[in-house]
């Protein structure tokens, strides 16, 4: 089965061609031709994962201008797991989209883009060397752009898509550089840590740093976070599939895949842990102040990716991967549940307009509740607790300061998700007449999120099994902490506390009177940073006077200073 899986990126292409050619002709059934692709992908990936083993495909000298320009695809247990996640969430999202996009004139185009995305994502996961990884990497970036800017005529969608492209271009550049500096014969992605690879210019550190920059751009970490909240301009199913479950997790996947290389570069690992932690805290804080429902969840995604990065950075890559696995399920659930309300409210997304409307959508209410509980990490009954506690535990053991910050950060998780849940689902309805039920469109949406609900509950129990299965491609992995344990209980208590406080706060009538009241306080911080930048550039730009003699004087002084420093350092 692994042999077949190595060609998994082909699975959605027949659907792409058929849908693009307008099969079936009846517009009501547009997109049905694409449905088989992700299901086949899911089945093949699961069977291959259960069967184990590995299989690779290689065509030598395919891109002769690169040091390692062969086409290499590698299907092993890790790729099978990622493809199973991709197939699972994609299958759910395809069915959901049949309802969500039912009345959209661009439905066919939507499914064609979706197929393109799944194909590129599969290629990314199957990549056996950097050259193929780069192709998949760029492919998902382009399909992400196409889908963010899907509603071309709405204001802001194009600029949001271009921002995503720009951020991804930083990562693509880093990856291209990495692909150019690996010496010939360095071997596939899994063995980037060999002596020969580290012999390239800059050694293992530079290679690891470039991979980290690429991963940070894809996973919206550190300063490259900015595109993800704006990517919410796209349709909600896209936010769930691409910007929560699969594509943004690609960065974590690559870091896990090359974790042996990170072990050779301890400083880069530490940087990953610090940046992941800082991003997790900052994004949680930003989420509390969002005025837009989907952006609130988007910042939550950035924060959870931060937790994964921190897990990888503290030397526990499996915990990061495990959190990726459970997070894909519950974050897609949160987005799709939110999408049901947004669809029912005629595309409104602001929290002020959606206030209290969630209670009219039972599936959405329960889906969002389960997703929230998994996000906080409710022990035993949700998947999130297993993986998030594993990260916090590993961090406490290896980098105690980071561990404590991550542990306390769960309070923020509870606050922001409790705020969203309280405003949309528990508060008294602001405007009941804004709700329009459309049973034929709602049915596929409602039932498609049921598998995600089940996944958010049970997937955590697969942890130890996954650890055994993945010991082949990843080597021996750190053990998972038993559940329930003390840290997990503490984290849950903090998170639940935040959740309850937030729900209480937003349900007060005074909050409803001024729903936008707190929305822009976070912006003040961002604006302060921007103002500082402007002030610095205003004072520095005075140097650019246009007076040539001053320029010459500056150059002479600078050259003299450089020479003096060099001589004195000798």
């Amino acid at each position, binding site marked *: 089965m692994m042999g077949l899986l190595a060609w998994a990126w082909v699975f959605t292409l027949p659907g792409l061609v058929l849908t693009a050619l307008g099969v079936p002709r009846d517009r009501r059934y547009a997109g049905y031709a694409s449905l088989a692709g992700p299901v086949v992908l899911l089945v093949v990936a699961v069977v291959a994962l259960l069967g184990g083993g590995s299989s690779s495909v290689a065509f030598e000298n395919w891109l002769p201008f690169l040091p390692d320009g062969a086409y290499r695809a590698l299907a092993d247990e890790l790729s099978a797991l990622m493809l199973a996640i991709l197939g699972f969430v994609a299958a759910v999202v395809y069915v959901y989209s049949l309802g969500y996009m039912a009345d959209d004139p661009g439905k066919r185009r939507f499914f064609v883009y979706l197929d393109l995305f799944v194909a590129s994502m599969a290629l990314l996961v199957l990549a056996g060397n950097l050259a193929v990884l780069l192709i998949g990497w760029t492919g998902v970036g382009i399909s992400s752009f196409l889908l963010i800017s899907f509603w071309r005529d709405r204001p802001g969608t194009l600029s949001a898509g271009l921002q995503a492209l720009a951020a991804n271009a930083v990562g693509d550049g880093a990856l291209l550089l990495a692909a150019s500096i690996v010496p010939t014969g360095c071997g596939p992605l899994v063995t980037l840590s060999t002596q020969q690879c580290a012999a390239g210019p800059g050694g293992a550190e530079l290679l690891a740093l470039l991979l980290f920059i690429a991963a940070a751009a894809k996973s919206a970490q550190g300063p490259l976070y900015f595109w993800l909240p704006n990517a919410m301009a796209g349709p909600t199913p896209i936010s769930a599939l691409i910007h929560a479950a699969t594509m943004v997790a690609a960065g974590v996947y690559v870091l896990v895949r090359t974790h042996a290389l990170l072990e050779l570069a301890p400083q880069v690992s530490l940087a990953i842990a610090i940046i992941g932690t800082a991003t997790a805290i900052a994004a949680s804080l930003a989420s509390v102040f969002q005025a837009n429902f989907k952006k609130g969840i988007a910042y939550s995604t950035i924060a959870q990716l931060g937790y994964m990065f921190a897990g990888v950075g503290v030397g526990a890559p499996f915990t990061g991967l495990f959190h990726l696995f459970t997070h894909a399920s519950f974050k897609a659930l949160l987005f799709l549940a939110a999408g049901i309300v947004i669809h029912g409210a005629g595309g409104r997304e602001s929290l002020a307009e959606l206030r209290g409307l969630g209670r009219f959508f039972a599936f959405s209410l329960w889906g969002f509740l389960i997703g929230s509980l998994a996000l906080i990490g409710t022990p035993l009954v949700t998947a999130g607790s297993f993986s998030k506690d594993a990260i916090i535990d590993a961090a406490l053991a290896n980098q105690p300061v980071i561990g404590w910050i991550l542990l306390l950060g769960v309070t923020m998780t509870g606050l922001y998700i409790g705020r969203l849940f309280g405003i949309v689902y528990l508060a008294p309805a602001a405007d009941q007449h804004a709700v329009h039920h459309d049973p034929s469109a709602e049915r596929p949406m409602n039932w498609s999120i049921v598998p995600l609900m089940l996944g958010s509950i049970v997937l955590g129990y697969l942890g130890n099994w996954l650890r055994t299965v993945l010991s082949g491609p990843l080597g021996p992995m750190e053990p998972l902490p038993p559940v329930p344990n003390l840290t997990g209980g503490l984290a849950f208590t903090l998170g639940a506390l935040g959740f309850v406080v937030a729900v209480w706060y937003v349900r007060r009538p005074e909050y409803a009177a001024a729903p936008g009241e707190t929305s822009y306080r976070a912006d003040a911080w961002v604006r302060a940073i921007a103002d500082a930048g402007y002030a610095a550039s205003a004072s520095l730009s005075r*140097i*650019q006077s*246009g007076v*040539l*003699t001053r320029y*010459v*004087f500056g150059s*002479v002084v600078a050259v003299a200073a450089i020479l003096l420093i060099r001589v004195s350092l000798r």
Partner: protein
Amino acid sequence: MSSEGLVLATAVGLFAIGSVGALLHRHPVAMLMSIEVMLNAANLLIVLGARVRGLADAESAALIVLVLAAAEAVIGLGLALALFRRKLVPDIDEAAEVRG
């Protein structure tokens, strides 16, 4: 003083003259000439180094510098002429229009 020392001192002296000239002159053509002097000082050093180390191919680098200097002079003179046509003052500081 050895002959190498003499050439070295000449090169340093030429470079100093050139850089002071580039700093003090405000006439564009005079500045260009000063830069040429600095380039020639650097060229002299290259030839000297090639001689001392016995590297024949290093001397060819000096030829490249000569060509570069010629190209630079062509562009620089063209710019100076264009500037003079527009401003009618042969003063480089009077021509500053950028407001930082």
